[in-house]
């Protein structure tokens, strides 16, 4: 009984965290994305920054960021905010990009129309910007929601050397039960978590995707309909109030420059204030850790390569069958949504029997966790964007001329998917480095698996509370990733765009 009550409370708290993080991400995505699409200056400033933020291993920066936030806002509230903030960082980037690209793709004459008929910022926001990116918001939410759960546990249980923060939630409950060797608690925790994830997809995201994107996904639309009409009602009212307010006051909902500058200054001061406790002394400790960085990177790189190859092959094959059969598509997508959502840290305890039973066990579990952080990006990109771009006319052409099997895959299917495949692989590349941090090293209730590699290096630095080394290695890894993005990926993208993008 006590367990059940605890389970329910923990799940409710975790869900509340997820939804707050989601709503914050949504607001951030809409405001930042539309700001980027409207202003050249903001665009050129933020595009590269977001590009970097989206692909660096956020997990490496989690502990330091958490420490900073916890100091800034003492007490439980600070911790709670920190956790929500960390979940936001795993949700928000692709959502911002989605809003930005769909507004960029808007017919420029729509902006002329808005100008001629004097639509103010509020009217544009409610009647143009938000509806224009509805589809991309839903598509990205589908992926982001899984990403959020994947990192939920990392936000609920954080240890940095001696300091350990623990928030009541389903993620921390699962890990606690495992380290207490309370198997009943552990398995029922995992079961409740799965049920919660499944419920959010079946009741909310899947019906939303069916309505907005016409994706074939299983779902129960009743709850979504209620939420939709409630949100629609509130939204319509808000639009009404704000647009008429805008006209009446003649105000522009824009902050004047001095206030903007003051806000920026305030933020900088806050960061400086909270960083004051971090002395530079431990920098010296970073040096030896950093010197082993190249070697460890060389150990992780082939793993990441293997994971990307596996993700590529598996997702193309599965997408092919999903393309052929609606039933397969529904089943795999549903399985994907749940599997992709299972928190990274839960995989090791969940598969601990496998890890312990065979000499190759730990390697296999590591690979599974790695794949979890990478595969789904590729897969969902294919399902959401790729399959929609397998053009109907090409498909009909193939049917008419009986192009089937391998030739169909080679000449019609894969080339049509390439643009979304490339986008998915880029996200998977960033994602697998991030996953390396939880895949290569785990310490659960005294049993430690250390598979070596950069991820392990970062995790160990966190476990020892060596903040300087943690930051230094995370930065070095980020630098490496960005470098590869700017050299290798950019070229690949250009090639695919030229060769296979549109007509």
């Amino acid at each position, binding site marked *: 009984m006590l367990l059940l009550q605890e389970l329910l409370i923990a799940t409710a708290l975790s869900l509340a965290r997820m939804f707050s993080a989601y709503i914050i991400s949504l607001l951030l995505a809409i405001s930042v994305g539309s700001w980027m699409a409207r202003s050249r200056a903001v665009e050129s400033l933020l595009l590269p920054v977001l590009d970097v933020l989206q692909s660096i291993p956020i997990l490496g920066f989690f502990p330091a960021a958490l420490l900073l936030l916890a100091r800034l806002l003492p007490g439980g509230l600070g911790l709670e905010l920190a956790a929500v903030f960390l979940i936001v960082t795993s949700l928000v980037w692709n959502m911002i990009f989605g809003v930005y690209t769909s507004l960029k793709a808007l*017919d420029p004459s729509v902006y002329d129309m808005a100008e001629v008929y004097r639509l103010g910022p509020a*009217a544009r926001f409610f*009647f*143009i910007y938000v509806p224009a990116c*509805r589809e991309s918001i839903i598509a990205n939410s589908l992926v982001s929601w899984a990403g959020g759960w994947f990192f939920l546990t990392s936000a609920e249980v954080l240890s940095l050397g001696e300091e350990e923060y623990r928030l009541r939630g389903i993620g921390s409950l699962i890990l606690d039960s495992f380290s207490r060797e309370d198997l009943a608690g552990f398995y029922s925790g995992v079961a409740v978590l799965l049920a919660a994830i499944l419920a959010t997809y079946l009741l909310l995201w899947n019906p939303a995707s069916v309505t907005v994107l016409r994706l074939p996904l299983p779902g129960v639309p009743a709850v979504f309909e209620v939420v939709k009409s409630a949100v629609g009602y509130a939204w319509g009212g808000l639009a009404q109030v704000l647009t*008429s307010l805008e006209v009446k006051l003649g105000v522009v909902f824009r902050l004047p420059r001095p206030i903007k500058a003051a806000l920026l200054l305030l933020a900088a001061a806050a960061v400086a204030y909270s960083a004051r406790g971090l002395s530079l002394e431990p920098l010296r400790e970073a040096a030896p850790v950093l010197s082993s960085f190249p070697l460890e990177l060389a150990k992780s790189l082939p793993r990441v390569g293997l994971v990307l190859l596996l993700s590529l092959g598996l997702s193309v094959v599965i997408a092919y069958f999903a393309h052929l059969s609606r039933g397969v598509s529904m089943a795999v997508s549903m399985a994907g949504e749940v599997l992709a959502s299972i928190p990274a840290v839960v995989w090791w305890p969940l598969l601990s029997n496998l890890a312990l039973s065979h000499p190759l066990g730990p390697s296999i579990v590591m690979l599974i966790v790695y794949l979890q952080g990478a595969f789904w990006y590729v897969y969902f990109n294919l399902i959401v964007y790729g399959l929609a771009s397998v053009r109907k006319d090409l498909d009909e052409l193939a049917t008419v001329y009986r192009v089937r099997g391998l030739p169909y895959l080679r000449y019609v299917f894969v080339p049509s998917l390439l643009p979304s495949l490339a986008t998915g692989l880029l996200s998977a590349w960033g994602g697998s480095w991030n996953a390396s941090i939880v895949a290569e090293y785990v310490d659960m209730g005294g049993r430690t698996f250390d598979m070596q590699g950069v991820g392990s290096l970062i995790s160990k630095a966190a476990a020892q509370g060596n903040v300087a080394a943690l930051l230094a290695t995370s930065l070095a890894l980020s630098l490496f990733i960005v470098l590869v993005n700017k050299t290798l990926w950019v070229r690949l993208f250009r090639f695919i765009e030229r060769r296979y993008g549109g007509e």
Partner: protein
Amino acid sequence: MPKVLTISNLRKTFIEDKRVLEVLAGISLEVGEEFISILGPSGCGKTTLLRIIAGLEKADSGEVVFHTPDKRVGFVFQSPTLLPWLTVLENVALPLRASGVRRDEAYEKARKYLSLVGLRAFEDFYPRELSGGMKQRVNIARALAVEPTLLLMDEPFSQLDPLTAESLRSEVLDLWLYGVTTVRAVIMVTHNVDEAILMSDRIVVLSPRPAKVNGIIEVNLPRPRDRRSPEFQKLEDRIYELISA
């Protein structure tokens, strides 16, 4: 005739990566309560002129002065530019709602102008469910619903099939001639000499870029005008001469 608008000596030069493109080389025009067409070779700066009058673009020098107390402008875009996520009614009502008109009032007004263009029955349809001609009608209803003094139209019939274009032309002309709208002056950009003679009181012929006013022709033919009449033909010849001059 009461004056509606004075356009004096508009100049505009576009500069893009060091390429300098002079588009308007001093355009002046008095606009009364009349229907004016602007004719000119492709790329000479007609759209730019219209955009400057509408306030979408700033001129380098010169000015546009309204003589009426109400300076509202309706703009019929070349393509309909309807928002796909709004119904026909919502699309027409949008500019009104954005200017602070209450929702029901905005809808009522939008319905009135939808009836004028014959689309009252389609108010709950979405743009994708309409034909090209119907979309352009919505575009026109939206421009009229803001109850403008000046109506600007940029090649409004060029993207329609000939039959649809012809019937829409006479509908617009009827709306204008019967004075059922608030519009007191119309400026229409077109490529089509025939259409210009058929519809307008005066025709402004622009030179190739940079645009200057090559000539202004009064069309004093009685309405409804007959394309096959000798006077119509003579006017047509004169205008072609002026364009190629």
